[in-house]
């Protein structure tokens, strides 16, 4: 067997941002006709590597060769001309332009893009629609179609399946395989181990900005990849987060009781009780009313009907401050909503403590420092870039958002998809922390879009469909298949007839 052509070789790439070293020694080899996974914990340098490859950043050192020729890109346009195109985690589209205008902006051939959109299952794409009016899923597909339309020889895909339903993911995989068959190369970034082992030929693993290994991705290689990503000891420790068996609650007063809650178009009628010491999972496809549910309980929006009780008292929240005073705090899905990008970790963590007027005065600096350090130590936040939160990796930003509430007092923690787009090691840390908080007497309500994760963290699950609770089960019953069926509304048996 003759060795396949090396499409892309990266050698010793280095990049630093001020004092933060993002890449130290990243190397990678992509063969023609290969789909290669690029893996690593949050902050390992995957995104930086992709951005250097596509000319967004310049490298401080190292070399890139394409088909044996040394290259150095000064802009994404140069990279595109050399055949490298990427699809980013967040679609790079201008909201106030139409789809067609966006495509033209990226100099993507319109006809080809339209054809790819059809291929991706958007029959008869309306390219005259404004981007801001389109749902997020569609935007990702448009972004992908834009990339495909320029017919790149090397396609880089960053976390595209993180929020896509299974059928769309399948279509994307088909296209990736098509690219492989044509003897081209694909670099695929994903945190989903299952996807990687099905789709990719090999995986290159980064840790702390260094390539720590490349491995075949046959089934059974998952543990090997996790070990590479985390280093051995961390991987072992993180695996020890088995859920505690659920306890019976009897007549104890629930921490949170929701009765026939209704809000907006999507949330129709949801009731449940959440007890101290319990982690209650919510499973649902996108748009089944879970956003509205969390927003109502956290005081972000008012309900249209129904009741919310916490610790036995009827509540009505007109502002998040009301909910926080009642001990209910929210970690929202999109950390950009909750973080102060230009401020330090410390100010981000301490923010809620200055809400009340009575706390506007002088700050007890030493006490504050103690509380903040405690919280970020508990979450093992990487503090190398502590002076501005935007310089931290996504996973570390999310940890800071959780640390914020650890540093203040709460009784009920609402976590809305806290691990979206976060590496597996950080995920396990977050779930272990939720268990720990519950063990200490807090009540936790957790929505996660990653169904297999439910069993890791929860005692009990309720499944929402069409704005109603369609199923309730213990974590032990909640395997992925059962949850998925219920989440699609494919459940026949439901105990109460009301």
């Amino acid at each position, binding site marked *: 067997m003759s060795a396949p052509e090396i499409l892309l070789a990266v050698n*010793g790439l*280095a990049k*630093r941002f*001020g*004092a933060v070293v993002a890449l*130290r*020694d990243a190397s990678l080899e992509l063969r023609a006709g290969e789909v290669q996974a690029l893996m690593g*914990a949050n*902050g390992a340098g995957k995104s930086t590597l992709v951005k250097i490859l596509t000319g967004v950043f310049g490298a*401080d*050192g*190292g070399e890139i060769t394409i088909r044996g020729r040394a290259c150095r890109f000064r802009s994404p346009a140069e990279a595109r001309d050399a055949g490298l195109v990427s699809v980013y985690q967040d679609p790079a589209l201008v909201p106030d332009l139409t789809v067609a205008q966006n495509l033209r902006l990226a100099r993507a051939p319109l006809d080809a893009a339209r054809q790819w959109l059809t291929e991706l299952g958007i029959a008869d794409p309306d390219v005259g629609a404004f981007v801001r009016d389109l749902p997020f899923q569609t935007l990702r597909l448009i972004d992908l179609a834009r990339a495909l339309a320029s017919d790149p020889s090397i396609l880089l895909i960053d976390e595209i399946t993180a929020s896509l339903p299974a059928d769309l993911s399948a279509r994307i995989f088909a296209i990736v395989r098509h690219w492989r068959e044509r003897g081209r190369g694909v670099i695929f970034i994903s945190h989903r181990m299952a996807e990687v082992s099905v789709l990719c030929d090999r995986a290159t693993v980064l*840790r*702390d900005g*260094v390539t720590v290994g490349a491995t075949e991705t046959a089934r059974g290689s998952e543990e090997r990849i996790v070990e590479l990503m985390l*280093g051995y000891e961390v991987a072992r420790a993180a695996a020890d987060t088995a859920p505690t068996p659920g306890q019976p609650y009897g007549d104890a007063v629930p921490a949170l009781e929701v009765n026939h809650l209704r809000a907006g178009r999507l949330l129709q009628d949801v009731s449940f009780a959440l007890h101290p010491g319990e982690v209650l999972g919510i499973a649902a496809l996108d748009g089944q009313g879970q956003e509205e549910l969390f927003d109502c309980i*956290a005081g*972000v929006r008012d309900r249209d009907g129904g009741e919310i009780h916490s610790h036995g008292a009827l509540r009505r929240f007109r*502002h*998040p*401050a009301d*909910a*926080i*005073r009642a001990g209910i705090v*929210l970690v*929202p899905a999109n950390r950009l*909503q*909750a*973080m*102060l*990008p*230009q*401020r330090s970790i410390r*100010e981000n963590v*301490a*923010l*809620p*403590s*200055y*809400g*009340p*007027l009575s*706390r*506007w*005065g*002088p*700050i007890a*600096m030493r006490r504050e420092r103690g509380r903040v350090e405690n919280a970020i130590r508990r979450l*093992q936040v*990487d503090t190398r870039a502590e002076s501005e939160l935007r310089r931290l990796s996504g996973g570390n930003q999310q940890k800071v958002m959780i640390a*914020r509430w650890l540093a203040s007092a709460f009784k009920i923690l609402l976590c809305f998809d806290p691990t979206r787009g976060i590496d597996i090691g950080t995920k396990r840390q977050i779930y272990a922390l939720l268990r720990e908080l519950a063990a200490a007497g807090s009540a936790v309500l957790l929505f996660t879009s990653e169904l297999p994760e439910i069993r890791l963290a929860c005692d009990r699950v309720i499944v929402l469909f069409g704005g109603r609770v369609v199923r309730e089960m213990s974590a032990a019953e909640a395997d992925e298949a059962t949850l998925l069926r219920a989440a699609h509304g494919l459940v026949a048996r439901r105990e109460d007839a009301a």
Partner: protein
Amino acid sequence: MNAPAQSIRPHGPSAISLGSRFGAMLRRHTIGALILLLLAFVAGIEVARPGTVTPIWISNILLFAAPLGILAAGQTLVMLAGGIDLSVASVATASAYLMATHSSQGGSAAVLWGLGVGLLVGAVNGLGIAVLRVQPLVMTLGTGLMTEGTLIVYSQKLMASAPRVPSFIQSLGSGKVLGGVPIDLFAWIPLGFLVLIGLPRTGLGRLIYAVGDNREACELAGVRVWQVLFADYIMCGLFAAVAGLVIVGGTNAADMSLADVYLLPSVAAAIIGGTSIFGGRGGYAGSVVGALILTVLNSLLTLLDAPEPIRQILYGAIILLLAAAYTRLTD
């Protein structure tokens, strides 16, 4: 989360260019860089007109910088929260005028009239911006014009008591003690320290930064953002009122366009000092140096006998250059 054992691996081309190292140094010590710039201007003056920089000249620069510094304090506070206050000049003028026309009621009553204007306009600004969510630029432009108009009507109705600047206000705005220390520093220094220390070390200070950085995040964290903005614009109004008193003490005549020339410099001082017009980043220390730089620049242009248009061109160019430098440094 670092793997310490293997993280210490020297890498060949790690030599960072001198330029980016200098950039990193400036990023960490922006105030230091600004002070160097200030000293460069002072040196420039001494070179252009040897013998100019004397203790008396320095004392005069401080005297003239104080009202601008006080105005810039308020401006910095609202800019950090992502806003701007274009009514400060009108408020300063109105404060001075009302104080002067009420001087017959006694010194402290007159001063209270002046501060009252600042409080009132600040509260109206705060209400519009914080509660009704009017764009700060539009809101304060409107209230500034309204203040000006009201003041003209008021001055025309006023026949009896002509405006008179009390002697203690005169010495506040133009006097010196202890062999050359301007008295207005005794207003500027305590107020300045309050802002300088209050911004990083009080709850309200932190909230001002936070609101400017991400308003939605503040709401989610349980901060009632309108309260913060309301307080912020009131403080700005009060600072403008105090500045008006200092200014009128220097000119000794309360006319209708008294503080107009200070409006854009108050914004410029904050921008030169590194406060982002989008909010969330900066601080008062920079604005203080910014106010001094602008005052020295003015003095330089006066010394060179530069005509007004040239003066404006240089003024604008320097602000643009510094703003561009900041953008490069901080992004």
